[in-house]
């Protein structure tokens, strides 16, 4: 949880040094797909390895080998899941379930599933991973399989965003 200082809320333990000015991406992509076969929302988060490993140092104060170290991967996966959430338009949380994570090439993937009520006409999405580390961090969320593709762009002040759903 963030530490509270007077009237302001401190949103990060430390802030980045050495932004990779000409190199790092500081972006992630999350794809939410309505799987017609299972009826679940499948959620895949993709983060760049470079960003992830440097973020770990900033977030947890220790460095870790995200490519090889299983506990580092789990820790980062848990962090990502804690910074992504779904809820109904009545602000009732939609539970997400951890499916797992993996390293694939340049990317670190985290997988989740969520059950969506068939009658839902809209959901609210929250995605602020790494934004307390780098204010430039932008998280893109694509929603697929519920009508035409819809996208939400989460920058630091985005908060919850609503997406209207079309029936599966």
């Amino acid at each position, binding site marked *: 949880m963030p530490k509270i200082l007077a009237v*302001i809320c401190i949103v990060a333990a430390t802030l980045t040094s*050495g932004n990779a000015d*000409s190199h790092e991406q500081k972006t992630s992509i999350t794809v939410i797909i309505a799987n017609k076969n299972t009826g679940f929302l*499948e959620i895949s988060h993709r983060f760049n390895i*470079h960003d992830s490993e440097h973020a770990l140092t900033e977030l947890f104060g220790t460095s870790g*080998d995200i490519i090889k170290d299983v506990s580092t991967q789990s820790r980062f996966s848990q962090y990502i899941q804690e910074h992504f959430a779904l809820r109904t338009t009545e602000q009732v949380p939609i539970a997400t379930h951890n*499916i797992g994570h993996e390293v694939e090439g340049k990317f670190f993937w985290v997988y989740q599933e969520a059950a969506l009520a068939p009658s839902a006409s809209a959901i609210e999405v929250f995605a602020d991973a790494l934004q307390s580390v780098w204010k430039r961090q932008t998280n893109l969320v694509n929603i697929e399989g519920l009508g035409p593709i819809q996208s939400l*762009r989460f920058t*630091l002040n985005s908060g919850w965003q609503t997406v209207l759903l079309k029936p599966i």
Partner: protein
Amino acid sequence: MSSKVFALTFALLSTIAQADAVLQTKGDFVDKFRQLEEVLPTPNSYRTASGEPGHDYWQQEVDYKITAVLDEANRRLSARQEISYSNNSPETLKYLWLQLEQNRFKSDSMAEMSGDFAGIGRRGPGTKSNDGDAPAGISFGELRRQQYYADNQPGYLISDVTDSNNAPLPHIILGAQMRIDLPKPLKSGQSTQINMNFQFNILEEDAVSARAGYEHFPDDAREGGNDIFLLAQWFPRVSAYSDYEAWHNKEFLGRGEFTLEFGNYDVSLTVPDDHIVAATGVLQNPKKVLTKQQRERLVAAEKAPRPVYIVTAEEALEKEKTASTVSQTWRFKANNVRDFAWSSSRKFMWDAKGHQQGGDEQPLVMAMSFFPKEGGDLWAKYSTESVIHTMDVYSRYSFDYPYPVAQSVNGPVGGMEYPMITFNGPRTTWHEDGSRTYTQAEKRFLIGVVIHEIGHIYFPMIVNSDERQWTWMDEGLNSFLDGVAGREWDPTMPWGVEPRDITDYMKSTVQVPIMTQSDSVLRLGPNAYTKPAAALNILREVVMGRELFDFAFKEYAQRWKYKRPTPSDFFRTMEEASGVDLDWFWHGWFYTTDHVDISLDKVSELRLDTKDPDIDYARRRDEENDKPSSLFVERNKAGGTELWVDKNADVSDFYDQNDRFTVTNKERNKYQQMLVDLEPWERTALERAVREDKHYYVLEFSNLGGLVMPILLQLTYENGEIEDRYIPAEIWRRAPHKVKKLIVTDNKLSSVTVDPGWETADVNVHNNHYPRKIIPSRIDAYKAKKSKDLVRRDIMHDMTTELEDPKIKPNKK
């Protein structure tokens, strides 16, 4: 239609779709191949229609002579500079504009005044606006930044702005820009000189994220620690003045980097005499600032197989213990560069290796790295070697590296480039036992970032595109080439940009075209780096082929070496040098937010009528017999219903013996007459077609994403053979939404796949297969893998592990 046109009989196999409409006031036609000349600037004698510098091409020259003194204790720089400005333009100039990038950190700069709290415009630490029940917040980093500004005065103190006669020149400072009014208009072909003094407090890079500044190391043996100083965008620099924009007086907002004029630099840097200085240019006084041993090591490095230490780890560590109170001056000269950057620290190790590239222009380049103990073995092993590898690869695609040095310096900046010198951030990690290690990701990052930043010395430090307006022109081209270099380093590492990496971004609804001004881009990474790099990758591997692409790309680099290209010059050169019409490609990939989604909707199998009734009627009988029989009839049969014709077999006629496909002599005569009436060549063609009996298929495609692309087909035959075919993007020219393609094959098809290798950034592979395939979702595929992984865990053993409190470890840079 005459009888000489042969009918084709159909056996249908599937369905359809469609796309969008623009520009057209009637109907839904969209001209995806519209000539780009309507969008590009009109060619002129400065920039030709072929994309090369015209016969009247000109650019300004700005030479600098700077003497600077580093006040290490106060982290302040004081300097004097003499600027010689040569007006090579045909115009008369009454004033000069200068960029004052250090002022971008002052409270009255456009960057600071227009900063959106918790918005995406400003670099650096995070802030967070209030959101419903959550309070507004700022990060510790932002607190540090605010406190840093409260305690330190950023920005220039400029004085004594004079002409060559030391007469004061009127000037005005507006945020991060400055206008100096000339004593008399500077006519075409004339030069003028301006002098000025300037000072500024060097920013703490970790606090403000300035692409340069100092980094403090409090844990060094010396009491109070040591610093690394990186100085970039550090002197008032004359803005570019070009044929297409006149003064490039766009104030620095922090993202769009810069473009300047080429010129010659003579820079004297006075620093503590235990510092090592790395800078743009060639050291002019090595005998004064280097020891004899260091000079000998430098000579030895010229032909060494591996980097040679000029300053060893032990020597650097020893210097970290104390600080000299004596200064000395390092003098550097650099010719034909568009900027000058430098670094200084007593912490630096220094290694070097000669790159013997041959050629006439610069046969020997000294590749050098400067790094503290925090860089350690990671840097010792890979930095200088990465510098050389970059030059080795990039030169093949452009021109020989033209400068005498190429340098990689470790400091607080993650990655940044300047002529002949780059700043790169990766480090080792300190452990309690005093050892230092690095992760595989950090190793990739070091090699990757050095390749990328050294690559920037080619683009845009030599091919001088305007980063402040078109980030993609250097980042996109450079990301494409660093992928080429990376794959030549070790293809098992995940380098470069694969088309599949960009599909989720390209199908998203929140994006802007690549051709968007740098400061306005919503997501700079995918927009300026990944998407253009993927586009060039596709252009090379799919659209043009390596031979044509590489020739044209090299032509672009060589045409604009030491010159100032615009996007249109790149687009035109690539077309003109390759002979490939790429207007559709530039338009789709760079001017729109369309994506690639080509759907294979339907495959129809056709067969040629022979016109010979004995052949054609027999085939039709077979087709009829192949159809499933009526369920009604089958159930009657199963129920034992006795047919009338069976019960009354004695009542029959001609038609009980001859079905409707029976050929008559009348039809045979007609066929023979038709053969006689054919022209000889027609008869030959028909006879051959009947003899070969090829398979004909009509493939129907929809363009669902809007972006037209070649269609890469993989045909799989019933006999197991596989064949690849290529349909150029031009198939979409008059039918942008849906097209059909007839293919003729020797064997019978069993399946067709579009883009089987995921080479075109097609965002939806589900509609690329005919017949359709069940493709598991990413999570389904992961679950299948994971189910195997889980059983390998030793749960019985691991369950017995005692729960522990987390250990708090000391942390050091």
